[in-house]
């Protein structure tokens, strides 16, 4: 049982791609603009990775006793740089998520219940 996580992730990619294929072809052409907006919003999912970069605590230089730090003097600054970069990435993704959902909601608000009769 030496299956790598990587392989499982490939499986998830394949199956999700198939799901995407079906679900997107199922979208009615009249809603293709909201579709672009909502996929735009969910592509902000990168926020999860950005949070993982921004979130970890900053370790002190002592950790280099256990790890093969190549440039011990930069260990702390590099972590801080990563955090700042992560926070910027979080902010960028958040613009996408909040903005994307807001646009979608704005567009969908135009398809009012009255028009819903055409089932």
């Amino acid at each position: 049982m030496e299956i790598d996580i990587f392989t499982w992730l490939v499986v998830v990619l394949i199956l999700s791609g198939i799901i995407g294929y079906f679900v997107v072809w199922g979208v009615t052409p009249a809603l293709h603009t909201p579709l672009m907006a909502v996929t735009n919003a969910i592509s902000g999912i990168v926020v999860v990775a950005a949070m993982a970069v921004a979130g970890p605590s900053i370790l002190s230089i002592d950790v280099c006793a256990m790890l093969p730090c190549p440039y011990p003097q930069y260990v702390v600054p590099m972590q801080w740089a990563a955090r700042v970069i992560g926070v910027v990435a979080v902010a960028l993704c958040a613009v996408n998520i909040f903005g994307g959902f807001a646009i979608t909601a704005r567009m969908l608000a135009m398809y009012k219940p009255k028009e819903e009769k055409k089932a």
Partner: protein
Amino acid sequence: MLIALLNDNLTLLLAIAAGVLCVLGLQGLSHPKTARRGNLCAMAGMALAIALAFVHPSMEAYGWVLLGLAAGAVVGVPLARKTPLTSLPQLVAVFHSLVGLAAALVALGMYLQKQAFGLMEAKLALEMGLGAAIGLITLTGSILAALKLQGTIGGRPWGWWGRHYLNLGLGVGIVACTAWFTLTFSPVAFGLIFILSLILGWTLVAPIGGADMPVVVSMLNSYSGWAAAATGFAVESPLLIMVGALVGVSGAILSYVMCHAMQRSFISVILGGFGNAEAAVGEASTTPSKAAALAGTEDVAYLLNEAEQVIIVPGYGMAVAQAQHAVKALTQQLLAKGIEVRFAIHPVAGRMPGHMNVLLAEADIPYDLVEELEDVNPRFAEADVVLILGANDVVNPAAQTDKSSPIYGMPVLEAWHAKRVFVVKRSHRPGYAGIDNPLFTLPNAALVLGDAKEIVEKIGTALKAA
């Protein structure tokens, strides 16, 4: 220190649940009735995803992350609220660029973190290189597309003969640097990946004509999804992979749908071949070849009053003029007089797929008056009056008759079969594809020059008097 995202069974299942909520979100768009519920599902999915990232054991810097989220919300929501609907394509393009940049920043941040402790691995380097490259291509490509759409830089394609070789060279360079980076983790290699990808994004989109920008935007949508998926492999998050694949596939399908509706091959769009032809024709055709007849709003109102069947063809001009509410008022006047009114929607009318549907829905025009290309085309022959509101390319008969036309083969609305055709536009200038429209000079057609909204309002007033 960064811990991989996959840390226990429960989190994995919850992450998949978040992905499934996003699927339900898209699934909701299969019908206007369920669309808003779908959007809520997608929101719930993203909220769950963020919550999972928050409770992750390695998460410490809550304040920083909240700051980032808040900053994004403060910028994003007003942007989304205030942007006029006509600028949506640009806004979407800008948003894609942000995701692309974020994916590249994540790769950079991970690199710094791993390098700080000397923990880089080859597999990780490969995934990070890929994520950064796709992300940065998306970044500059989207910015250029947004600028072209906005008209800040001309939509004119960049016709230099060597562009294909340049792109090929850049692509090979990126692959080579990624290989180098995978083997050595060298910061120089990583930096080169960044620089080359930024350039490639620009040079990929530059040769493509303005008329093809919506296809490009959709393609970049797809790229942003694949960038997210690549990042998902780097941080080992099935959620990123799942949602990234959804977005990637969605963008690809929308590009395909658009290309199909314009009867052109995706490859030719991407290589910018069409853009060239368009530029050449575009310059020649800023003045019409034959004189088109002109008509006044009273003429239109008189003939509408006499008509039994009217078909309205909205196009990009209606969106620019924000004429949809005026159109709705006119429609009600006509319906009150017992005149049959239909709206004919071409799949690529406007600047985004479904653009016209959104506008008509905004103005609350009943769904059952709206018909798609295939259904409405046989009806033009029976129509007494066709009112074309700021549409041009989508009613161009050259698509059927002129083999040399760059849009030859694209299905169009056959408005010319009607008894009378009125075209509302502001000038004699061509439409987005930059080509002449022989419809305007047909004997049964006349131009009504002016802003679509004003003209429609004037027609309404004249109709009241009639």
